């Protein structure tokens, strides 16, 4: 399989995940709950972002044995996180045949300058982005899926909203430019001209774009979909809540029928306690600033 075809396949898997919810899980039991609730994929990790935040210290790739136990528990795609720039963690995840690697700012960055050269891998990568420039730089490095960074582990959707709005506003700006202005825009965004041209001609990123960071309710998920997300990652929001199975199921349905307010009203009833959450303005560790 040549590299071009491999990239098409990897973008294609992200296309199959669209309109779905990818859930963070830490045990095989949670993975099965997520699959039964309608997750289109799970993210296997030792600690969910809220607990990573609480624990502090250096946060690394999860134990491969734990990831394998989740791969064995479910039939849907399994993703796992490696640190930004830590290409050996990525090699390990590829070796255990993970379906998607998240080169993630939720873990402690291993490199403060360079991201992983994702073109070196057969396995697909998703990366976080706060704006169009970050998204296109990650795509240029070989990412086949993008998600907003949001502010992980807070249960506060404000950063995801900010990132999605900013990215879409920048896309609209590129679409409205004259072609002879795109060269300068490529320079300003620090990305190749060809990627800017693609955005100009198609009005979207060349890969699928999900929302992530702080999604805690069916309404949060539908908000991100109405703002243009093609699907949603839910991290701490599910298994830090009172009734994970019910909340997960409701978020899945809200993502499918994200414009049906009547249905979302029903889905929002009796969900039990939502994760408590913390205000991103009140925390010291801002994960979204990791990796530009």
């Amino acid at each position: 399989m040549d590299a071009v075809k491999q990239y098409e396949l990897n973008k294609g898997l992200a296309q199959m995940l669209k309109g779905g919810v990818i859930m963070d899980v830490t045990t095989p039991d949670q993975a099965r709950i997520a699959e039964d609730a309608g997750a289109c994929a799970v993210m296997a990790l030792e600690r969910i972002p809220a607990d990573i935040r609480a624990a502090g210290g250096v946060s690394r790739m999860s134990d491969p044995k734990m990831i394998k136990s989740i791969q064995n528990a479910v039939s849907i795609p399994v993703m796992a996180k490696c640190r930004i720039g830590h290409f050996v963690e990525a090699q390990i995840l590829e070796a255990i045949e993970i379906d998607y690697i998240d080169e993630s700012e939720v873990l402690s960055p291993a490199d403060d300058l360079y991201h992983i050269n994702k073109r070196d891998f057969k396995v697909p990568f998703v990366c976080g982005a706060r704006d169009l420039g970050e998204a296109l730089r990650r795509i240029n490095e070989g990412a086949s899926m993008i998600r907003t960074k949001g502010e992980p582990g807070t249960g506060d959707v404000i950063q995801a909203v900010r990132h999605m709005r900013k990215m879409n506003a920048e896309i609209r700006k590129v679409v409205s430019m004259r072609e002879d202005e795109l060269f300068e825009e490529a320079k300003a965004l620090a990305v190749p001209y060809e990627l800017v041209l693609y955005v100009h001609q198609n009005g979207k990123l060349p890969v699928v774009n999900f929302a992530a960071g702080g999604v805690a309710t069916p309404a949060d998920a539908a908000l991100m979909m109405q703002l243009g997300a093609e699907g949603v990652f839910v991290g701490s929001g599910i298994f830090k809540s009172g009734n994970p199975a019910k909340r997960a199921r409701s978020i899945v349905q809200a993502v499918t029928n994200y414009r049906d307010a009547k249905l979302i009203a029903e889905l929002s009833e009796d969900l039990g306690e939502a994760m408590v959450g913390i205000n991103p303005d009140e925390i010291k560790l801002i994960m979204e600033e990791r990796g530009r």
Partner: protein
Amino acid sequence: MVGVLALQGAFREHIEALNTLGAEAKEIRKLSDLANLDGIILPGGESTVQGKLLRELDMLNPLRDMILSGLPVLATCAGLILLSKTIENDKNRYLATLPVTVKRNAYGRQLGSFITNGKVGDFNNFEMVFIRAPYITEVDNSVDVLSKYDDKITGVRYKNQIALSFHPELSKDTRLHELFLSITK
């Protein structure tokens, strides 16, 4: 009007393929969307998610009845799993209108995904994109085999149902969508 099931997965790609051919298509997200359809496409995605949503949104039995009474269907990847009467490695059954046995994730995880070229029915040199794809392990005598890869059945036709392991909506080739549209008229 043709519909594309839009509960989860790659439905937009199918709508774009139909639009290229000058056909309109609507997204099917709830029970009332099923009214007055001339045909339906079941797209790729996760069969567990789509099947569960079909059930929760009370669409499973009405859609099954429509297919059994002759509604033309084009099903790709997860769609094939929804249609199959038997799923070898899954206790779930969904529409179960197609008399075949299917195996989920039959080529393994994403690293087992691949692209190949071959014959599909009357169409030569068709690009076939397999993503965590299923294949068909058994078919009823009345089922026509459209395509095979490595001796495994990857495409079938049975009366009004066309079902494929691969993703024609991800290639630029619209011949299978044309075939589907021709049976919706």
